[in-house]
């Protein structure tokens, strides 16, 4: 790494961090950052100044009706059965959103009209399993252990779409290797469908599965997490 290059980068550091460097100089600077960790860390520290400035901007109430227009644009309108597509979408989205530890802030350029695609990569803190009833997959459950970005707590999130038009509440129990169960909470089902998330103590070393139980005690669905990959 030539000192000359670093010196040149430091002349452009603030404009780069604030995102106002013209394209040609920006390309030159980014190419240097790819090769130079010191400069990369330096620019990241300066980026926090820009983020901090934006955080000072006052909030403002959008016009009446904004909320419903946005929700409609997101395609999140209530839909009766069939739920299958919704369930698959839910599972894919949850997997991608929970599988943190990769990606970044790259939200800048091409936007296509496609929903998120399921990512298969996880950082080892995410457990995922199918919820099964009578041999059929009826949902997905995701258990995320405590760590950065989770507020120091573990999380359980699930989406279930039962053939039966059950009207909950369904109780969720985490099952441990020794056979013991720990209740996580309960959530309502509407026409057999429900999605729900809750903080939960998730110990990846001992949790082996989950069970959804109806108010009358009957088991609605079960899940078995794959064996830990030793992360």
């Amino acid at each position, binding site marked *: 790494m030539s000192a000359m290059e670093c010196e040149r980068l430091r002349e452009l550091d603030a404009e780069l961090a604030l995102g106002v460097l013209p394209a040609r100089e920006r390309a030159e600077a980014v190419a240097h950052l790819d090769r130079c960790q010191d400069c990369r860390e330096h620019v990241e520290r300066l980026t926090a100044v820009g983020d901090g400035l934006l955080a000072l901007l006052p909030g403002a109430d959008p016009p009446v009706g904004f909320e419903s227009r946005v929700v409609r644009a997101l395609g999140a309108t209530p839909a009766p059965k069939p739920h299958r597509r919704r369930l698959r979408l*839910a599972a894919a989205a949850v997997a991608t959103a929970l599988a943190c530890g990769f990606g970044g802030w790259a939200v800048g350029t091409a936007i296509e009209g496609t929903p998120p695609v399921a990512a298969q990569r996880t950082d080892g803190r995410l457990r995922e399993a199918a919820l099964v009833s009578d041999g059929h997959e009826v949902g997905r459950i995701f258990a995320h252990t405590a760590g950065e970005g*989770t507020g120091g707590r573990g999380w359980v999130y699930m989406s279930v779409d039962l053939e039966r038009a059950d009207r909950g509440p369904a109780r969720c129990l985490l099952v441990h290797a020794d056979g013991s169960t720990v209740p996580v909470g309960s959530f309502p089902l509407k026409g057999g469908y429900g999605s729900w998330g809750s903080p939960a103590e998730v110990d990846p070393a001992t949790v082996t599965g989950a069970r959804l139980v109806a108010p009358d005690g009957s088991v609605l669905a079960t899940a078995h997490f794959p064996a830990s990959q030793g992360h």
Partner: protein
Amino acid sequence: MGLSHGRMPDEALLTGLTTGDPELAVAFVRRFQRTVFGVALAVLGDPQLAEDVAQQTFERAWRHAQVYDSRRGSVRSWLTAIAHNLAIDTVRARRASPADPEDLDELLGIVTETPERRALADDSAERVRRAVAELPREQARALVMAGIYGMTAREVADAEDVPLGTAKTRIRTGTLKIRALLEAEEKR
């Protein structure tokens, strides 16, 4: 012990946003719409354009939820960055000058305002606010022009009627001073 949507942590709400569940989508939009619209309005100064940008911000967040990385900042700062980028793109597409001198002065007043109730606050936003307030006026103006309005050094130079080198120096010196002040406070 499940939480109502309104009390779910930001990241869990983002997780749920893309499930197609309308209640989660409403909760997500409701929680962040003031922030997102506020950023767009500050940059654009036009409520109609700001509304378009705010809507695009939520659509982009929905499509890109999978690239959100909690190690790089909060959901709120992620959305703020998206809204800011889109607002700057909108300004540039219209070849409009974002910074009316009066708007700039007003905005500078807002981001350096330190009423008593905030004076003792020690969160990172207030540290930035105090640091900006300590800058020489011309550096604070250059920093707000670049950092909030997205103006290049050339545009700052033209707006302030100073040489390009002077504009670059003001942006850089202001940024480095704030970073130094923040790091000094973080070490206390």
